[in-house]
């Protein structure tokens, strides 16, 4: 009984599979396990289930034709497919335009292309995490074939890029436009292929209450992009590999639920909880919110508590059953703090003391209360331990200069 109740506030990392999703998937493990590409009815039936799921994904994305949806194994695969596949189709002269705050699933393919000799422009962001549109417009004026890949919403801060405007500018400049919408699908109503001229869009199931191991890449008809995985005719020869039908069905169900959520006020409730959490945490002295508060996902809050370190805070939160993330060096797996906060020029008193809380439809008032009850004590304890933040800082040049 020592284990505290779980307060899961790390939904930008992964989400709980919805019970409806799990239920929809189960028959495809036990009864309907045929190969969707087979010629007999046992497989054909499964094929129809898969296509029904595709239609649900297409509906959520506003895709005119469900065949524009290609199922993949995850968001990272979708990003790799879009980036490498397009550059391969456009040729060696292709310039790639992206931002400094993308997810590594975009940044690293872009860096790999840079090493192969492609010109890659990493557009910066303002201090509030919004895109430097002047720099972006400048990059679009580079002559020759271009691929733009910009995230719809930032996974760390929740800050939104103006993807409609970015896509329109890209199309006017003759560029192919891809967006990594992994954090935005199901949370941003504006995602609509019939209204926003993106050519490709990546997302992942496990961020919208489907299980891990399934993602999708929307490819608008006519987009120049080569397949990434070779070896079979599946997905109209755009992605080889036997179709992962149980997970595809699960993704379809998750998209159906997400579409309903965009209409039924759930996101407003999530935003209200997030705002209450934000206001409560801002009562702790010197707390800062990282990122623009208006142009932001409804579920994400990134805050910094100066003079203390993220991993230490996460350990204390963990003792109270609270799951969150940090952009501190010690939690990033490297020795450097979050590339997103650094690109935003976050004051570096705050760089190592950032926490990200990300909510979902399952987040409750109790979850928010648990953080608000625990956090002030954690900050106090760690600040008492810290040599900084006492107003003297003889060895910390930050305050004096």
């Amino acid at each position: 009984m020592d284990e505290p109740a779980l307060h899961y506030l790390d939904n930008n990392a992964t989400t709980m599979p919805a019970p409806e999703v799990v239920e929809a998937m189960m028959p495809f493990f036990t009864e309907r396990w045929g190969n969707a590409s087979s010629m007999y009815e046992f497989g054909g039936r499964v094929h129809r289930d898969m296509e029904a799921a595709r239609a649900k994904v297409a509906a959520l994305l506003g895709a005119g034709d469900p065949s524009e949806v290609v199922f993949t194994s995850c968001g990272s695969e979708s990003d790799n497919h879009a980036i490498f596949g397009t550059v391969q189709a456009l040729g060696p002269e292709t310039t790639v335009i992206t931002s400094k705050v993308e997810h590594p699933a975009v940044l690293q393919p872009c860096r790999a292309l840079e090493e192969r000799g492609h010109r890659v422009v990493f557009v910066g962001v303002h201090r509030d995490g919004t895109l430097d549109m002047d720099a972006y417009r400048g990059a679009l004026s580079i002559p020759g074939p271009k691929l733009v890949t910009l995230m719809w919403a930032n996974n760390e801060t929740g800050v939104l890029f103006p993807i409609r405007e970015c896509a329109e500018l890209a199309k006017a400049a003759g560029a192919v436009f891809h967006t990594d919408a992994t954090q935005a699908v199901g949370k941003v109503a504006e995602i609509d292929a019939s209204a926003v001229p993106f050519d490709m869009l990546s997302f992942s199931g496990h961020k919208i209450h489907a299980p891990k191991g399934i993602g999708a890449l929307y490819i608008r008809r006519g987009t120049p992009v080569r397949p990434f995985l070779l070896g079979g005719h599946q997905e109209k020869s755009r992605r080889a590999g036997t179709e992962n039908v149980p997970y595809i069905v699960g993704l379809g169900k998750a998209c159906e639920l997400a579409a309903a959520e965009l209409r039924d006020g759930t996101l407003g409730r999530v935003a209200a909880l997030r705002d209450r959490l934000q206001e409560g945490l801002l009562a702790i002295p010197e707390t800062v919110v990282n990122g623009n508060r208006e142009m932001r996902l409804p579920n994400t809050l990134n805050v910094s508590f100066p003079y203390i370190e993220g991993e230490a805070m996460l350990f204390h939160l963990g003792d109270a059953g609270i799951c969150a993330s940090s952009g501190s060096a010690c939690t990033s797996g490297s020795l450097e703090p979050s590339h997103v906060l650094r690109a935003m020029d976050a004051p570096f008193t705050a760089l190592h003391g950032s926490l990200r809380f990300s909510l979902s439809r399952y987040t409750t008032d109790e979850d928010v209360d648990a953080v608000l009850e625990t956090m002030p004590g954690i900050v106090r304890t760690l600040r008492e331990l810290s040599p900084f933040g006492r107003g003297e800082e003889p060895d910390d040049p930050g305050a004096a200069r």
Partner: protein
Amino acid sequence: MWDYSEKVLDHFHHPRNVGTIENPDGVGQVGALACGDALKLAFKLDEKKERIADVKFQTFGCASAIASSSALTEMIKGMTLDEASKVTNADIAKYLDGLPEQKMHCSVMGMEALEAAIANYRTGDTTVRELKDDPLVCTCFNVHESEIVEAVRINHLTTVEQVTNYTKAGGACGKCKGAIQAILDRELGNRAENGAARNAAAAPAAPVPFAELSPAKKVMAVEKVLEAEVRPSLRLDGGDIELVDVQGARIQVRFLGHCAGCMAANLTKNGLVEKKLREALGDDALEVEAI
């Protein structure tokens, strides 16, 4: 999630000897806010000035940094200064039933703070390591050669990755990995071959007049000067500088960290950056613009 020992978690949750000492005999501080961890250690000797009677710490850092600091204070309380000066990071890690390899730098930080505090008592010095004769290897984390050599010797390190785990050197931009390898090679006995490589790396920047260099060569030459002559001193103050563009004799830079928004950045730009670039590149027409 890190796999911390019970002892690490115990010292993290219940840190011993937190705080400061009035009129301490020795104080040592290592690390900085910018680096993500810092430790300030203070001790007071007994009346005979023989043994450590009291010791306190303040730590900014992760769970293992806090635990390493706490453990260190418990270990050295009651020791003579000679005994304390023999405590190594390996002893701290052992006391804690081990640390994850990637967290060994936390134990090294403890050892260095202790060295600094003892040096402070013995010499009155507030800095442990003299900058001259001790080349700065990692400019991102401000790690000097002697620190790397010490960690290599105490912990029998053989790879660059290990050196990064123990000292943080090479853990950010990675540009110093070659230099770390060279130190390792030398320490491991392969002196001859890499001596030449190191000398080559330290060769002067531009024999061809700067104005006649290609744009790419100009960028490389400027970057080299920034790295060798400018960044080390900016980083001492928690700042940094990024090369944005080189157009003819016009060099655009961006100040980062503490330098960004610093009132004195303009002085730094003219007095340090421009001066160093003009000197090193032998071109008085060079102009630096901060954006």
